[in-house]
């Protein structure tokens, strides 16, 4: 006998993600799921963003890594509330991990929460954490072909950032080809070239982020 099911395989994760999202909404905070390859500049983006926030906007951070507290310590040194998740080899964060991590953060006091996912362009794309925005960070040294090779990740992005954009020429990065690749799977996602190191493009990114924040709390 055949029994029809038609249920999303990750529905258990998605239910907890919905609960996380409800918690964020209640606290009036904008949650960002930051995804990228290892070394694209996720932690640098968090620090560069925090440094440019308007007075009174309070930001918290959840760091996800296979092991170590390196990123959490770096972020904590900047005075941001932060908690570290170690997945112990797991290739992505999932909604239950975020649910537990939230007990370590002053959620009602925060306006903005950055969740730094495990460095990986494959698996994190499948797991809703309860975020409002999926931010994908590419970078000049990775090359412009990444949207063609990892379409699932770029399809999920609400915005795509190209970090280390001060080095585009050095790495023969073809921005036009990159933009075409993103547009192929995700025609609505803006692509912002920036450099956390030089500050190039950071104004455009901050304007976009704060507009999203304003739209959420409006």
């Amino acid at each position: 006998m055949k029994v029809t099911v038609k249920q999303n395989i990750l529905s258990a994760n998605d239910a907890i993600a919905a609960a996380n999202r409800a918690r964020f909404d209640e606290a009036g905070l904008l949650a960002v799921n930051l995804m990228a390859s290892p070394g694209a500049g996720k932690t640098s983006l968090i620090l560069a963003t925090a440094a440019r926030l308007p007075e009174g906007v309070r930001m918290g951070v959840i760091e996800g890594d296979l092991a170590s507290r390196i990123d959490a310590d770096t972020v904590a040194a900047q005075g941001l509330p932060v908690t570290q998740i170690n997945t112990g080899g797991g290739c992505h964060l999932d909604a239950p991990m975020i649910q537990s991590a939230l007990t370590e953060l002053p959620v009602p006091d925060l306006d903005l929460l950055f969740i730094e996912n495990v460095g990986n362009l494959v698996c994190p794309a499948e797991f809703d954490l309860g975020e409002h925005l999926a931010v994908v960070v590419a970078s000049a040294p990775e090359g412009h072909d990444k949207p063609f090779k990892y379409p699932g990740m770029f399809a999920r992005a609400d915005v795509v950032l190209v970090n280390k954009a001060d080095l585009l020429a050095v790495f023969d990065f073809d921005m036009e080809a990159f933009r075409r690749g993103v547009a192929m799977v995700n025609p609505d996602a803006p692509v912002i070239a920036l450099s956390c190191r030089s500050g190039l493009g950071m104004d455009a990114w901050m304007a976009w982020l704060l507009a999203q924040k304003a739209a959420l709390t409006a």
Partner: protein
Amino acid sequence: MHELSVTQGVLDIALEAARNAGAARITAIDLVIGDLSSVVDDSVQFYFDFLSQGTPAEGAVLHFQRRPAQATCRDCGHVFTAQIPLTLNCPACGGSHLSVSGGREFRVESIEVDDESNG
């Protein structure tokens, strides 16, 4: 690489559906997986055989219905199956304005069960 958690999800959903149907044993599970979803079929079956031991789903066969992603050329309208890595140019006209849709399916479609009465 996250096939273990994916497989646990498949097993949990199948076992619950079997319970709701009053079935004693699951013989097959039909999955619908889009080509852009990052799941390796053989790996899921491998984990499934391990995780399902001692459950009513032990020995069940997983059927993967793969769903392709579709590319459409916005220059000439040509429609073709998209494969990873995605192509930069339309194979028909060489145009570079392509859009890709579908291929994101990720669900348990149905299960095959033995009725309780049949043992």
